[in-house]
C-alpha cells in the first residue's frame, strides 16, 4: 500500500485498538500484525505511540507484568476518542468515494466527496 496512506490510517488503527481497554506496545503490535500490510516494521509503532502521547491522544501508565519487566500501557484520552470518531466518518466517505470511482461500488455510498464532472460522467 502507499506509505502515506498506510501511515495515515495506521495512526487511527492504533487508536481504535485502545477503544475498549488500555494495551501495551507488544499487544498492539500483535493485534496489528493480524491485519496484512498495516505494519511493516514492528519497531516503528513506538515512535508513533510516542507521537500520539505528545499530541494528547493517549496517556500511559506503567504496570507490572508478572512475568517480565513492567509494561507501559497506553489508554485513549477523550481527545483521542473524538479524533477517532471523526476519522471513522471521514474514512467511510473517503472509502465510498474511492470505491465508486474504481467501480467497486459497495451499494449505498454515504455522502460521497464531490467528484469532478468529467470523472463522474466517465463513471456512468
Amino acid at each position, binding site marked *: 500500500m502507499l506509505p502515506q496512506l498506510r*501511515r*495515515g490510517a495506521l495512526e487511527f488503527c492504533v487508536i481504535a485498538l485502545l477503544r475498549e481497554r488500555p494495551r501495551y506496545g*507488544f499487544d498492539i503490535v500483535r493485534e496489528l500484525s493480524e491485519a496484512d500490510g498495516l505494519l511493516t*516494521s514492528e519497531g516503528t509503532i*513506538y*515512535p508513533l505511540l510516542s507521537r500520539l502521547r505528545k499530541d494528547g491522544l493517549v496517556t500511559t501508565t506503567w504496570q507490572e507484568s508478572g512475568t517480565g*519487566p513492567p509494561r507501559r500501557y497506553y489508554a485513549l484520552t477523550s481527545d483521542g476518542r473524538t479524533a477517532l470518531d*471523526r476519522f471513522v466518518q471521514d474514512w467511510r466517505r473517503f472509502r465510498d468515494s474511492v470505491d465508486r470511482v474504481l467501480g467497486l461500488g459497495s451499494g449505498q455510498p454515504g455522502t460521497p466527496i464531490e467528484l469532478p464532472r468529467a470523472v463522474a460522467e466517465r463513471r456512468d
Partner: protein
Amino acid sequence: MVVGLDHPLVADYLRRLEEAARGLPAGRRSELVDEIRGHVTEALAATGDDEPGVRSVLDRVGSPEEIVAAERELLAAEPPGQLGATGPWPSWGPPAPESVVPLSRPSSLWGPVEVIAVVGLTIGSFVVPIVGPIVGLVCAWASRQWTRREKIIATLLTALTPLVVVVAGAGLFAVRSTTSTVEHGPVIVDEGPAVQAPPAPEVSP
C-alpha cells in the same frame, strides 16, 4: 539477565539502535531504546530465543535505522493528529480547539479585499452611488482579517449615512421654511452632533 537479551544478535542489534538514535533528544533516545528492548523481550518470550527465533524477531522489529527514521519523521510531523494530512487525505485529527482558533490576529489588517471595502464604502459612495457601498459591504464581509464586530460597525455606518443625510436635510428644510420661528433653532443644534458623531469618513456629507 532477561531471556534472550544476552544473545549476541540481540546485544548487537541494541547497540546499533543506540548508535542510530544518537541524534534524538536525550530523554527520548533512551526511552525508545527501552521500548524496543521491552518489545524484543516480549517477542522472544513468545517466539523462543533460539537463533532462528531471534533472527525472525529482529527481522520483524525492523532495522534500527528504519525505527529512528520513523521517530525523526514523527517528531517533525505536522500539528496534532494530522499525520495523514500531508497525503491525499481529509484533515483528520482531534478537534484541538486551540489549534483551530487563531490565538492572534494576522499581522496585517490590510489585504486587497479590505482596501476595496474601504474605498467602496467611502469614495465609492460618491463615484458610483448605490453600487459602490454594496461592493464595499460585500468585500467587508468577505474579509478574513476583520472581526465580526468591525464588519457590523461598517455595515451600520453605511446604512446610517443616508439616514443621517435625510434627517439633516429635513432639518435644514424645516429651518428654511420656518426661518422666523426661534424655537426650531435648537433642533438644528441637536442635529449637528448627530451628524458629526460617527467617526467614519463617509459621514462627512
